[in-house]
């Protein structure tokens, strides 16, 4: 008999069962995998879909990437962020739309984590900061899948969290036999995202399991915890998880630097809140 865990894994592997992704995504996936495809060809493809271009540019210009100037073209977004990041943003845009409209607290938590990751990577002078921010932005994407595809189980998880001192992750494991981080990793594989995005998503609660991209995973782990500590947004429970010792050692931050990082994040979160309010009012305008 199929276990719940296997059932969910099969569901996530079946792209057709997920919210409809734009047809352009299939073409983009093929292009991004081809070495011959130039940035211009990929940019032209995305630009041919105005709604998709707008979504990509909206995220690129959101406070969490923190570019000093406004990124006004998809070509510039590709140059600044790289194909992998833009591909991940395009692939996740449909699901992210649902998050914006239906799970505002989680959307804010995710944006906040993206901001935190951006600030931490700059402090540590880690390369590929934008990719790490994107992994942080998408780290809880598994929760969105649970919310929209497993409605009855999501309600049971919520009741467990509300009823006692149980974290959402513990409740997910009890109800589903798998947590959102692992589901997010499965989704990343279904979408053919690069491993450097998948591993931080799948291991953000247990960074010691992250072998190839341990630095990136440690940043996403800490970003998630700092945003929960800040109380910004709502990721399904109000418990701050423990920072894993291995991740803390990997980042090698002093208390002084951590204090500066927290101050910088908290100041930036004011802008993120404004951005989120703008998005929400634009959704209300549509109704």
């Amino acid at each position: 008999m199929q276990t719940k865990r296997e059932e969910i894994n099969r569901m996530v592997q079946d792209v057709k069962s997920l919210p409809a992704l734009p047809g352009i995504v299939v073409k983009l996936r093929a292009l991004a995998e081809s070495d011959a495809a130039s940035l211009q060809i990929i940019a032209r493809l995305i630009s041919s879909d105005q709604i998709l271009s707008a979504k990509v540019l909206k995220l690129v210009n959101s406070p969490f990437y923190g570019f000093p100037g406004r990124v006004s073209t998809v070509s510039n977004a590709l140059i600044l962020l790289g194909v992998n990041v833009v591909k991940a943003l395009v692939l996740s845009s449909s699901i992210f739309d649902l998050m914006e409209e239906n799970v505002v607290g989680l959307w804010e938590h995710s944006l906040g984590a993206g901001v935190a990751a951006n600030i931490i990577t700059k402090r540590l002078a880690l390369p590929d900061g934008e990719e790490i921010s994107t992994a942080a932005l998408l780290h809880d994407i598994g929760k969105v899948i649970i919310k929209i595809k497993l409605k009855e189980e999501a309600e049971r998880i919520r009741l467990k969290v509300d009823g006692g001192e149980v974290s959402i992750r513990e409740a997910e494991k009890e109800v589903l036999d798998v947590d959102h981080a692992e589901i997010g990793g499965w989704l990343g594989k279904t979408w053919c995202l690069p491993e450097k995005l998948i591993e931080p998503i799948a291991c953000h609660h247990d960074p010691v399991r992250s072998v190839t991209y341990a630095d990136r995973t440690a940043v996403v782990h800490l970003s998630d915890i700092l945003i929960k500590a800040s109380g910004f947004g709502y990721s399904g429970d109000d418990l701050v998880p423990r920072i894993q010792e291995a991740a803390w050692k990997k980042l090698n931050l002093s208390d002084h630097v951590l204090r500066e990082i927290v101050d910088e994040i908290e100041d930036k979160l004011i802008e993120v809140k404004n951005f989120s309010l703008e998005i929400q009012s634009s959704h209300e305008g549509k109704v």
Partner: protein
Amino acid sequence: MQNIPLILAAPGMTLAKAVMRPDSESRMPICGAGTALTELLIERLDQMGIASVLVEGHPVLIEGEKTPEAEIKALDHRFRQVCEDPLMIRLKEIYKDRLIRLSEEWHANEA
């Protein structure tokens, strides 16, 4: 520092962060941090479509906004399962110190 809707901005408040043109691709600044707001400037910002500004201190009490004391209580509550862990204690202190600073700004404005 407090983020306030422009409608609550008043002459004499000081900008804590530069205000940028919302319609410009290059995000040109309209006025810099440290600028004192005047009636004329607030009117101009309104005409340019600026919805909110970051000002120094905590000059406005917004409905539904938690006081720093309530925020500190909520912080303790969020950390309740990790309050024995030395690293998490240090992290909580960082957030608490910040809230205490905000509390001082808040009450200085009350006085």
